[in-house]
């Protein structure tokens, strides 16, 4: 059933983040990061943001980080971003 669904979606060329919980991370320049389909915030400091998603955790390091535009499923982090790393919790394979 799931496989069929996937095939149908591929046929319709639907973006993945629309039909599933997979997060989409957009980085514009080095000062702006948007995460779509996020679950919550685990930690928030001025120099460190930890964003929880359905398949893992995204860590953002930097300084002067602000959380702008928080809506139900996307979040915008603004500030001087220095590094981003990902922690997998669920193996997709």
């Amino acid at each position, binding site marked *: 059933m799931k496989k069929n669904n996937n095939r149908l979606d591929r046929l319709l060329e639907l973006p993945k983040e629309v039909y599933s919980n997979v997060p989409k991370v957009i980085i514009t320049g080095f000062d702006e990061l948007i995460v779509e389909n996020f679950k*919550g915030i685990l930690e*928030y*400091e*001025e120099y460190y943001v930890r964003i929880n998603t359905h398949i893992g955790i995204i860590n953002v390091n930097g300084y002067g980080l*602000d*959380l*702008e*535009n*928080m809506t*139900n499923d996307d979040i915008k982090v603004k500030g001087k971003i220095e590094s981003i790393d990902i922690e997998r919790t669920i193996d997709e394979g």
Partner: protein
Amino acid sequence: MFIKILLSYLLGYLRISVEGYYIERFINICKTKKITIWNLKRSKDIQLYLNVRIGEFKEVCKIARKTQCKVKIKSKKGFPFLLNKYKKRKIFLILLFFMIVLIGLSSNFVWNVDIVEENNNEMENIVQDIENAGLKTGTLKNKINTKEIINKIRLQRKDIAWMGIELKGTNAIVKLVKAEEKPDIIDENEYCSIVSDKTGIITKINAQSGTANVKVGDTIKAGDTLINGWMEGKFTGVRYVHAKGEIEAKIWHTKSKKIPYNTTEKRDTGQVENKYAIKINNFVINLSKKLSKFEIYDTIDTENKFKIFSDFYLPISIIKTTNKEQEEIAKSYNLEEAKNIGIEELQKELDEEIENKEKIVNKNINTYEKEDGVEVFVTYEVLENVGTNEKIIF
């Protein structure tokens, strides 16, 4: 998101600070309860600044209590708070309302009539004619019937080729094209003779039809007949024709000027004073004394119409009067200098007057010394075509 923020500006929002150890939990609960919070900023200690809408503030307070955070209001922003501020200033609000009504009312009138003439051809009394036809400053815009006005003026005047009235804001732009005066064209079939229109000496005459009345070398005045509109034959007698021919004559262009030896020249000293006046329709209020402190000065008046937008003129204008102080400097020339100045000036004038430079045959310069100056005469001899048709009246 932008629309959401705009909406929250209209509804009013608060900038609050939340202080506590479980800030992440606070944010997550806000998210699950679908409370929109934006512009979150964490300062170095345990404070968090964020924006929240007025309606959702109470719920935020509840969540803060749950997560053991303190809430403080930093500032109130948005339209409702702005309105609240002006509740106390009733007179200001009334005046603001009054102003808006006044502007709205005054936009129904024409406050400025601009007359644009094609090629800057000046037309006499056109301003008055337009006023008489009903287009005045201060008339209601609805009452102006552009077609009727155009018809009225065109009936009155014959020198207008085209006319258009455009109402733009409180501006009425009248565009005019002047009709060119055409010389009377005499029909090919009608009998005519050629008459001189200038004074000079004939250098060439060539009658194609008709008989020549003058010879080469004759002096002609304006009004002399050059080619008669008839032919005489031995057997046919007198036969009238449409005279045709080429006549070239030497025409003198003379200019004279007197250059005095001692003159006074005015020069700006650089001292300037500005005076302002306010003009409301035709009523002028001077903001300063009319008399100038300078003895000799040059005044320049500039009038600026008061306008709100590019096309919205009001019947108020500011008149700026600039007085430039001048001083008189006595100058004296000797004979040679005066001569040269006179000749140069006259030659420049003549050069502007005569278009065809190749036809200039001779230049003549005469100077006469007088007691207090030099009189300079400059004469150009130019070859020109002369003659206009004149109908033969029997």
